[in-house]
């Protein structure tokens, strides 16, 4: 899975989908995760990075990560890697 190439993400957390005109806001951790996905990092690498930086546990990360990814899938912000 990756974030669609045409999706614009600003450092403020504003996301713009130019093909649908939809826009969204994510918090700083959301921005961080999207950037890691864009950099081609796998889920386990992202987990490692987040657990290192923030006080959270494995289970909470897993639950929140899948929630977040599902929401992005729902809004057509993602695509399957070729």
């Amino acid at each position: 899975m990756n974030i669609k190439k045409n999706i614009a993400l600003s450092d403020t957390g504003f996301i713009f989908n130019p093909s649908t005109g939809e826009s969204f806001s994510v918090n700083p951790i959301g921005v961080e995760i999207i950037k890691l996905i864009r950099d081609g990092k796998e889920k386990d690498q992202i987990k490692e990075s987040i657990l290192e930086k923030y006080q959270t546990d494995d289970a909470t990360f897993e639950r929140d990560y899948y929630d977040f990814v599902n929401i992005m899938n729902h809004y057509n912000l993602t695509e399957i890697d070729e």
Partner: protein
Amino acid sequence: MNKKKITVAVTGLNAVDNPGPGVPVIRALKESEYFDARIIGFSYESLEPGIYMHDIVDKTYQIPYPSAGTESLLQRLEYINDIEHIDVLIPNFDAELYSFMKIEDTMKTMGIKMFLPTFEQFEERHKVNLATFGKKYDIKVPYDRAIFSTSEIFGLTGDFTYPVVVKGKYYDASIAYNPEQVLTYFNKISSKWGLPIIIQQFIYGSEYNVIALGDGEGNTIGAVPMRKQFITDKGKAWAGIAIDDKELLKMTHDIIGKTKWRGGMELELMKTADNEYYMLEINPRIPAWVYLAVGAGQNLPEALVKLAIGDEVKPYTEFKVGKMFIRYSWDMIVDISEFEHISTFGEF
């Protein structure tokens, strides 16, 4: 560069909650780097706000309603043209287009040019003929039926599941959730716009529109798709954003190519949760949100005037995605003498 002087008459000065396209068309022409446009406003009612916008409208004349017939319209145009020497007229209402199409040749002899769809194009995309249009050009359209009498309403349940959209011949659309509501809207809309009333399958989704201009030879001079972001209770976009939707642009180019569309047009579409587009309507004129296209880099009213007078027009190939329009209302303070003047003399 010296700008080309031109006198353009424009209708649709009703910048109200369901706005006509006149004021944004004028703004586009006033901002043209090619034309130095003198604007003559044509109004139907004395309270159309554009009449009083003296910074963009140089002079306004009232013209007779289409129901008065083309003869009285022509007489009025002759009077106005003797004074103003109009080069181009841009009609902006669906309901008046037919009258202007009928007198297009006569107007040409008076020196007034227009750039309108042909009768065939106008009729083919008509709401009443949308299903045939969809089949012919391979476009998904919602199922619909034209009805002429209230007695047909209770028989609709065989073909439709509620809610349905109740639409007027030219304007107005309301969502009805049961036959009683259809009856109410039937009476309300038909008293204003006549018959038939179109009953259309309700499509759930997001509303998208495209503004486009065809040169009459099958070429698209410009096209900008827009997603409605804020919709009024009349279904009008009060805010919208220019989007980069390749499918919508391809659909627009296809329609203009196949129909050899002449003039401005607006495609109204609904995108379902399955990402399928349904064409709800094709309006044979520039829409009221045209100024978004201008802001995004395509001055389509300027291009339309160039086409009308036979000047060279280069098709627009790009626009700025993400440009938005946000409409607002503005109270003008007007002296009673201005209202008196337009009401009494029919010109101001």
